[in-house]
Structures are given as structure tokens and as C-alpha cells.
């Protein structure tokens, strides 16, 4: 088991190297516009452009640029400097990562708890009004894009522009250490918006997985030995949850993508919002940094899922 985890981690590092190389190609080789030209202002002197290119390190050959880029990332954990503010990407991300973690971790908790419990209720009350309502709602949640849902929530519930002034609106985020209560209330709407799509998918998966499990022979056995219905359902849920866990790793990626939009809609100073701005400004080093960070989280989530699977299903043994 330890060997398996180590091997998976090494593969994860290799994957990260590949992702880093791909982002290099994506942001340094493919763009046709010269980033130095973008910084030089209107009708720049050729000398100025050359000077900026030298400052940004763009005058070196591509292989040399690639080598320095990879060396910085993997030996010094430095992701370069913003084309705009000249600040280090690592510190830019560092000061924003807590907001993003607040948003995504909270949304993930809501996603899993909400999705699974709605799925369980739907599966146990199949074809009733409750089930139809839940599954109809899930369909809406899957179809609605985060940015649209975010605006709808703001227009409905935000304390400034909303119809019902219930929750603090956009730009109200404060750090957890600064004021925990304000932190919590300001994140309620972003959490709901970000979690909605993923929880809807999980609710539907859980519904079908549990419905199937409840028809299995071991459920009949559980009833035959006189277990209370609550425990019988627990037997079903325990079996139904396994196939869904696998999808957790994949959905983490979708969640991080959604965080980018939710942060910009609710004006939360997080990594997603940083990335959103960086894309608009062609600030490639910042984009690279955030992409790598996201890739790292997704790879890590998948390793965690695979390892968790071995504990959850004793029939799976890794070698």
C-alpha cells in the first residue's frame, strides 16, 4: 500500500512536469502577439521593445527559456513575475489562496453533503413528488452556468441590489481570521452557486446507484435479519457510494474551473479572480502559475480518491 502511494505520487510529479511543459507551449510558443509589445505603450521605440524583451527574458532562445522556466518551477517553486505588476507570481497566488480555499473547500463540503443526501432521499422516495421535484431541480442546476446562476442569486438575495436583501452581496468577502461571521455570511451565496452543478450530478448518480443497491440480495438479507430500516438503508448507501467516489477526483477540476467564474461574479479576491484578470491582460506568467496550481490540486485529489478507494472497497488491492 505504501509502495502504491509512493508510485502514484511519483506519477503525479511526472504528470505535473508534463502539464508545466504544455503550459509553456501554450503561453510562450503559441501566442502570436509579442508580450513586450503589449507593455510598451502606443507607437513604441524599437529600443524600448528590445529593452522590455530583455527584462522579461523573451530575447533568449525558446529552449533556454524553457529550461529556465522549468528550473524555476521545480527547483525554486517560482512561477516567474507578472508582466504587469512585476510581482512574483508565487506571492500573488499566496496572498489570494486562502480566499479560494475558503470558497472551494466550503463548496466541496456542500456539494458532497447536499448531493448525496438529495440523492439518497430521491432514491428512497422514487417516483414520488419529492423525487420529481429534486430531480427537476437537479436538471436546472446542471444546466445553469455558474456566472448566470451567480447573477440570479445576487439579483434575488444580495443585500445591496437584491430583491430580498438577505445575504451580503458581491465584494463583501473578508478573511476568516478578520471576522469569522462576516466571512461565513459573505460566502453562503458563492458556496451555493459553486456547489450547485456538482451536487446535482452527485444527486442523480447517488439516486441511480442507491436504487440499484437497494434491489440487491444483501439488502434482502439485512431486512431478513431484522435490522431497522435505517440500518438497512445504511447498508445500501455504503455500497452505493463507492462508484461515486471515483468521480470526486474528476469533479474537483470542474469545481476549480467554476471557482474562477464565481470569484469574479462575487468579486472575491481569490486565485480564480486573479487568473480571470490575468487572462484578460495576457499576463501569461500569472496564468501559468494558476493553471499549474489547479493541475496540482486535481492530480492530488485523484491520488487521494484512488487511495481512499482501497480502504472503501476491500476487494480492490493495489500492487
Amino acid at each position, binding site marked *: 500500500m505504501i509502495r502504491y502511494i509512493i508510485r502514484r505520487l511519483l506519477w503525479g510529479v511526472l504528470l505535473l512536469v508534463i502539464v508545466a511543459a504544455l503550459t509553456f507551449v501554450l503561453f510562450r510558443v503559441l501566442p502570436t502577439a509579442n508580450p513586450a509589445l503589449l507593455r510598451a505603450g502606443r507607437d513604441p521605440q524599437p529600443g524600448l521593445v528590445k529593452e522590455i524583451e530583455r527584462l522579461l527574458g523573451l530575447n533568449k532562445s525558446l529552449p533556454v527559456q524553457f529550461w529556465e522556466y522549468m528550473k524555476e518551477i521545480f527547483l525554486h517553486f517560482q512561477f516567474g513575475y507578472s508582466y504587469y505588476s512585476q510581482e512574483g507570481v508565487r506571492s500573488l497566488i499566496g496572498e489570494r489562496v486562502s480566499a479560494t480555499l475558503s470558497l472551494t473547500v466550503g463548496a466541496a463540503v456542500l456539494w458532497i453533503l447536499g448531493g448525496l443526501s438529495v440523492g439518497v432521499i430521491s432514491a428512497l422516495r422514487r417516483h414520488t413528488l419529492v423525487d420529481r421535484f429534486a430531480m427537476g431541480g437537479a436538471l436546472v442546476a446542471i444546466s445553469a452556468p455558474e456566472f448566470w446562476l451567480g447573477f440570479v442569486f445576487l439579483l434575488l438575495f444580495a443585500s445591496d441590489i437584491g430583491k430580498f436583501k438577505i445575504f451580503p452581496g458581491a465584494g463583501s468577502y473578508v478573511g476568516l481570521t478578520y471576522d469569522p461571521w462576516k466571512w461565513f455570511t459573505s460566502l453562503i451565496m458563492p458556496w451555493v452557486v459553486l456547489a450547485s452543478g456538482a451536487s446535482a450530478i452527485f444527486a442523480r448518480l447517488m439516486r441511480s446507484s442507491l436504487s440499484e443497491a437497494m434491489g*440487491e*440480495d*444483501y439488502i*434482502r*438479507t*439485512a*431486512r*431478513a*435479519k*431484522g*435490522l*431497522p430500516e435505517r*440500518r438497512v438503508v445504511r*447498508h445500501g448507501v*455504503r*455500497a452505493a457510494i*463507492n462508484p461515486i467516489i471515483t468521480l470526486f477526483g474528476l469533479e474537483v477540476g470542474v469545481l476549480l474551473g467554476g471557482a474562477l467564474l464565481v470569484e469574479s461574479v462575487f468579486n472575491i479576491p481569490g486565485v480564480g479572480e486573479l487568473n480571470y484578470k490575468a487572462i484578460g491582460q495576457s499576463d501569461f506568467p500569472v496564468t501559468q502559475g494558476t493553471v499549474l496550481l489547479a493541475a496540482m490540486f486535481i492530480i492530488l485529489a485523484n491520488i487521494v480518491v484512488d487511495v481512499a478507494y482501497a480502504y*472503501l*472497497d*476491500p*476487494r480492490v488491492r493495489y500492487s
Partner: protein
Amino acid sequence: MSGDGEPLLRVEDLRVEFPGEDGVVHAVDGITYQVHRGRTLGIVGESGSGKTVSSLTTLGLTRRQGARISGRILFDGQDLVTLPEEKLRAIRGNDIAMIFQDPLSSLHPLYRVGKQLSEAVRAHRDVSKTQARARAVELLGLVGIPDPTRRVDEYPHEFSGGMRQRAMIAMALANEPKLLIADEPTTALDVTVQAQILALLERLQSELGMAIVIITHDLGVVAEMADDIAVMYAGRIVETASAARLFAAPQHPYTWGLLKSIPRLDGPREEDLVPIPGMPPSLISRPSGCHFHPRCPYAQPDHARIDPALAPVPEEPSHFAACLLEADVRARLWRQLQAGSTPKQALAEAGLPGAPA
């Protein structure tokens, strides 16, 4: 049927119907039987004859499938058909336990065997986890699983097929039930293991004094185990008698078919097996008259019209059969079949016209 005193289980005119999209499935159609303490009833029939549904209904397990249930199931003086769910739950796995055909799919794949056993104990007894676990180890030992202190922490997939069925039996015995319902307990197992499981059930029955209802399509199994036998066809009991009597003088052509379709080592080599032609009928639209008449080689024209009742065999008040043929005709036919005649020859020699096409 023999046995003294009040029967432990008395099923009276039990009917179980499942309303469905294609029509009502008449799974169990008015069956009556009883089981006495410490004795064994064998219920025999093909798949789809209603034998499993009738025992699941005894435990109340068909209720949530939307079954329409009528009749009475008297267990220890209580009617299980009308008993509230919570009271029935207290009986399930406690006074009446059940084991199933496929032990692999009947055990939860993700829980340790010991946990599944101690859960059965704790569902009915207020004992600590440690006590329940000790009981689980004891039960595994009782059903002959070697090294139970180690095996108790294993998962079902680490057990062999026979071991799994032993574990299922151990789980059923957790609270020393008065009645054990065994639904095809050996069908999914190797032949050598089958004999072990049957021997185990017999040993446990004599040690614990419980009654057993064994459900099977295999007459060999009931010959080994049962004191009494009920033969089911299309949701009804078509013949019932003590095991000795049923094998000595079977009355119903369906029973003959079952008996003639098992190979015998002690019979003459050249004796052919006689399969029962056709398929069990649909339980939604059953044949008119005697439900068996389309497959019966001895059916007479009016058998498609008249529905036979389960009636005592002359001079054998505890032997019942639901057949429209006269008792002496049945006796002649069975003698011919025993002598090695095919159904056609037996029919001719008994002086009956041939079956309608």
C-alpha cells in the same frame, strides 16, 4: 401431516399478488400448510412456482414490493399477515430466520463477516459490541468454520462458496430461531459442498431443535432432509404428504414428472429420464381448469375446464393431491411408470384416451 400439538407455523389460504403493468401476477394462489416444532417441511417446485414468494411473505419481505396479501400466517399464535411492521421486524432474524440461494450476493461485500454476524445479534439483543463479536466467533465455530477468531475479521470475498453459506447459516442462527427458512440453500454450491451444508443443517436442527422449511427444486435434497413435502405448481400446492408416503405413492402427474426427471444410480441403466414437457405457465394469465393440463400427458378434455381442489387421497387422510384423475387410475399409471413405461404407454395400458393435442 404428522406432528403433535399446535403447529409452530400454520399458513392458511395464503394469496400473494403483485399488480404490474402487464397485469396481476398471481405468485401464490391460496396455499395452506403447517410446520411443527423441530420438524422439516420441504417445499418443492420449479422456479416461478411461488415457493420463494410464499416464504418471503412469511417474513413480511414482499410487503414493500406492493404485494396484495390475503389469508393468514399464524406463527406462535400471531398472524404475521396483519402484524405491524415494527413487531414483524422483531420476529425477523430472531424467531424466524432465512438463508438464501446465493451466499455471495446475499452477504454485504463491503462489511466484514463478523460485523454482519454481530449486527444480527445486536438487532435483537441489548449486548455490547464485544459480546456480539464473541458471539459471532462462537457462531462461526458452530457452523464448522475453522479458525473462527481469524475468519471473523475477513470479508465475504475471502471465503469459499461453502464457507459463505456456512456464514449465512451462522448469521441465521444468531438468535436461535424457532424456524429456519432455507431457500435453495445448496443450489449455488458444488455437489460435495451441498452434502456438507445439508448435513450441517441436520446437525444444527437436532442440536437447537428448530423447525426448518427447505425450499428447493431438487427432490434429492428434500428426500434427505424433509419430514413432510409440499409440491408447488403455478402458485398452488398440488400435492402434499409425508416424505416417505410421497416417494412411495406419489399422486400428482407433476410429482411423477419431478421424480422421473432425476437420474438414479440404483435404477436400470436403460431407463430413460422423462423430462416434463413445456415451460411453467405465466402467472399473469394462467391456463384454465387444471393449471398443469397443458403439460400433463394424462390430461382429459374436461381438465381444461375444471379446476381441481386439493383433496385427501382415499384411505390416506394426511396425503392430499389436486388432480382430476380418479385415484385408482393414478395408482395404475404410477405402477406403469415405475415399471419403466413412457407416459404414452402408461396412458394406453391404463385404458385412457390420449391427451388432447
